[in-house]
Every structure is written in C-alpha cells, then in structure tokens.
C-alpha cells in the first residue's frame, strides 16, 4: 500500500474509534444529565428526586431508555411526513456532530518528539494523537455553523406537526435562537481576538498563564447568558413554556423521536458548556501547571460539570421572562454590549 493510502486508512480507523468514544460519552452524559437534572431540581425544592430504581436512582436513565424504546409511536394527522421525521434526526445529528472540533486534552505525540510550529508539523517522526475528532483550523466557526443547524430541527419539528402549540413553540424558538446566536457570536470574538486563532487547541494553549475569563469577564457573562437561551434553558425556555404551550415544538412527538429531540437538547447543553470551558476557562488546564497530562480530560469534565450545574441552579433561581422582554433583552442589551466588548478588546489587543 502506498504511504498516502496508509495514512488515509489510519485516519479513518482513528476517527471511527474516537467518534464511537465521543458518541458513547455524549449519550451516557445525556442519560445521566436527565437524572442529575431531576436530582438537582429535587434537592433545590427540598425533595429527594428519583431514588427507587437502583441505589440513589442511578439506574433510572436505563429504565427511561427502555421505556422510550418500546413506546408506541403516535404521530398527528395532517403532518408533513418527511419534515416530521427529518426534524429529530437532524437535531440529534447536529448536536453530536458539533462536538467533533472540541479538544478535551493536549495533543499527545506518539513515538516522536513534541515540536513547535504549525499544527501539521508539530509532531515530527511520530503520530500526533489529537483529543478531538477533527483538529481543524476553523474549529470555532465550524462549531457555530453546526450548532445553528439546530434551529432548523426545532422549527421544522414545530411546523411539521400540524399542531398550534408546536407551531408557536417552533416560531418562538426560531426567533429566540437566531437572536441570541448573535450575542453568542459577538461574545466569542473576544477570546478569538486574544488568542489570534480559531483552532480551539491553540485557543486553550494561549491561556496557559491566564484564563481568558479574567481578561474577558463580560464576554464570559454574555456568552453564558446567550448559551442559556441557545439551549432553551430557563429563564429563556419560552419555546417549551409548559404553562402556555404544553411542550412547545415537541408536543406531537412520542417514543424515541421525542427522545432524540430531548437528547439534542442535553447534548447541546454539554456542547455549549464545553465551548465556554475551552474559550474562557482554560480547557483541560488545571490551576497548577505541573499537573500530569492525563488529568486534562478530568479537569475538562470537572469544569463542564460545574457549568452545567450552574445552568440547573439558574433554572430554579430565576423566573421565566415574558417573550417580548426576552427578545428585547437579546437585541437591546446583549447585542450592543457584545459590540462594545469586541471594540474594547480589539483596542487592547491592537495597542498591546
């Protein structure tokens, strides 16, 4: 076999292994997030939460999964058959696919020496093992592009269901997601300015002395607020405000198709928290530089977990916004603040 074919084959095999790992970790994370969400909610409300299936309710996600698998599928009359099925598939694909550019650890050089320079030449004579599925130089733009595909799935789900609640939920959701996406895009420009790169691994490596959250406190807050809205979390969960819209865009979904929409939501939560960790909280870096390399993914997971906990905490702390206030908050507060943050940061960077 020629060297080119060998390297292609190697890349494919490595990607399949890494991809399976990512999918397994994300799906397990989703399953346990549903449990943790219920536990945290319960504790905040002085209840116990699920504690019947297994010790501390730890087997509850498995029971839920089995139930979803064997549920009858009930689909509404008058639905748009193709779009109705496309929506959950697209939601799940986009949510999982977006995670592929997020590095959870430093590139490890197998059978070679660590070098400096451009990404491709960093590991002369060895095999560079990247800790993400694809180490691409437009990583951040790629993630933003793929996560915005989620808007399609939510709107299509709402429109295709032929239900008024679904339609209203889908409409609200589409308008809300695109409005807050701008806030998120502007907030993420700050770290990009400081790091001078869109490759997420480079961004993390630029934070070795000081995490960007200390240089970009406003950017971090803007991003986190926008991320809450992007993932339809309270206090911005108008798309599925149960008191007025039943369940919003997934009212008419049942069984595993409902499960896929739910999965997309929780995987998106993991993804936005991972992006916040990478861009602002120093990714896999611990507070002390001398910690061993293999601790990286653990630190990464700890930071992501902390952010997810804050999201759940916020859920039971703030009441839901009214819809017009929500949209005005996005356009009149977050967007101008984001622009100002970009300008201030660029003055700092350009003059430095």
């Amino acid at each position, binding site marked *: 076999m020629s060297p080119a074919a060998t390297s292609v084959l190697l890349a494919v095999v490595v990607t399949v292994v890494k*991809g399976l790992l990512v999918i397994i970790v994300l799906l397990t994370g989703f399953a346990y997030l549903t449990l943790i969400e219920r536990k945290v909610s319960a504790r905040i409300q002085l209840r116990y939460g699920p504690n019947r299936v297994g010790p501390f309710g730890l087997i509850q996600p498995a029971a839920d999964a089995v139930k979803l698998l064997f549920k009858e599928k009930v689909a509404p009359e008058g639905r748009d058959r193709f779009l109705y099925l496309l929506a959950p598939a697209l939601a799940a694909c986009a949510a999982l696919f977006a995670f592929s550019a997020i590095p959870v650890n430093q590139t490890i050089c197998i059978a070679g020496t660590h070098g400096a320079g451009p990404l491709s030449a960093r590991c002369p004579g060895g095999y560079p093992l990247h800790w993400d599925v694809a180490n691409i130089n437009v990583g951040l733009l790629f993630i933003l592009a793929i996560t915005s595909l989620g808007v399609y799935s939510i709107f299509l789900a709402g429109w295709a269901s032929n239900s008024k609640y*679904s339609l209203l939920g889908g409409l609200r959701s589409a308008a809300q997601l695109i409005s807050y996406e*701008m806030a998120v895009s502007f907030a993420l420009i700050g770290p990009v300015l400081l790091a001078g790169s869109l490759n997420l691994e480079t961004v993390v490596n630029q934070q070795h002395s000081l995490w960007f959250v200390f240089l970009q406190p406003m950017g971090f807050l803007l991003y986190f607020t926008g991320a809450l809205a992007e993932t339809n979390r309270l206090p911005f969960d108008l798309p599925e405000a149960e008191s007025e819209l039943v369940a919003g865009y997934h009212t008419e979904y049942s069984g595993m198709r409902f499960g896929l929409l739910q999965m997309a939501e929780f995987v998106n939560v993991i993804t936005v928290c991972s992006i916040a960790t990478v861009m602002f909280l120093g990714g896999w870096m611990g507070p002390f530089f001398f910690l061993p390399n293999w601790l990286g993914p653990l630190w990464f997971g700890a930071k992501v977990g902390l952010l997810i906990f804050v999201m759940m905490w916020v859920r039971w702390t703030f009441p839901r916004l009214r819809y017009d206030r929500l949209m005005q908050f996005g356009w009149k507060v977050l967007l101008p603040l984001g622009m100002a943050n970009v300008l201030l940061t660029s003055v700092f960077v350009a003059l430095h």
Partner: protein
Amino acid sequence: MLFDYLPLLVFLVMVAALGVGLTFGIPLLGPRHPSTAKGLPYECGIVPAETARRRFSVTFYLTAMLFIVFDVEAIFLYPWAVLVRSTLHIFGLVEMTIFIALLAVALLYVWRKGALEWD
C-alpha cells in the same frame, strides 16, 4: 490541508447513521394501535378547530431579516479577529471600528423605528 477535514466526513457518516437509525429503526419496536382520536393533533382534548398552518406575526419576519444583517456582520468579524494580533494592528482596528459604527447606527435606526418592539 484538506486531509484535516477527512475525520469530519467520517464522523458525519457515523452520526447520520445513528440519527437516521434511531428515527426510523427504533419506533418499529413499539406496538401499533392507531385510532382516529389518537391521531388528532393535541388541542386541550377537543377536536382541533382548524388547521395549524396559519399566518403568524410579521415581527418574526422582521427578526429573521435583521438577524441576517447582524449575523453576517459577526461572521465578517471572525477572520479579522484572528489577524488583529499578528498582522493588522492599528489599521485593522480603525477599519473595523468604522464598520461596527456603521452597523451600530443601523441597530439604532431599527431600534428607533420600533422594529424591535413586540405587541
């Protein structure tokens, strides 16, 4: 260069297989007892009064159009943001300040015109 993107293609195939498989495959496992009442879209338990394909507020269209303007702006900022530190320096700062100022004026105009109000 293009080789860096090969993993994305492979992963996309895996993810698509998973999504399509779960959407189409798994529902075959469950029982099927369709009935007319079960198939109706949910509307608080009554028979749906009319179709859900109705007109909706014009503000949603406005939001979509404004989104295109400002999101394209944000995307323009990214390549610039990468280069400010290394090459563009003050020149890039001045140019982008003018660009952002123009869009800030646009936002102010939209704001004053009342396009951001919901009623």
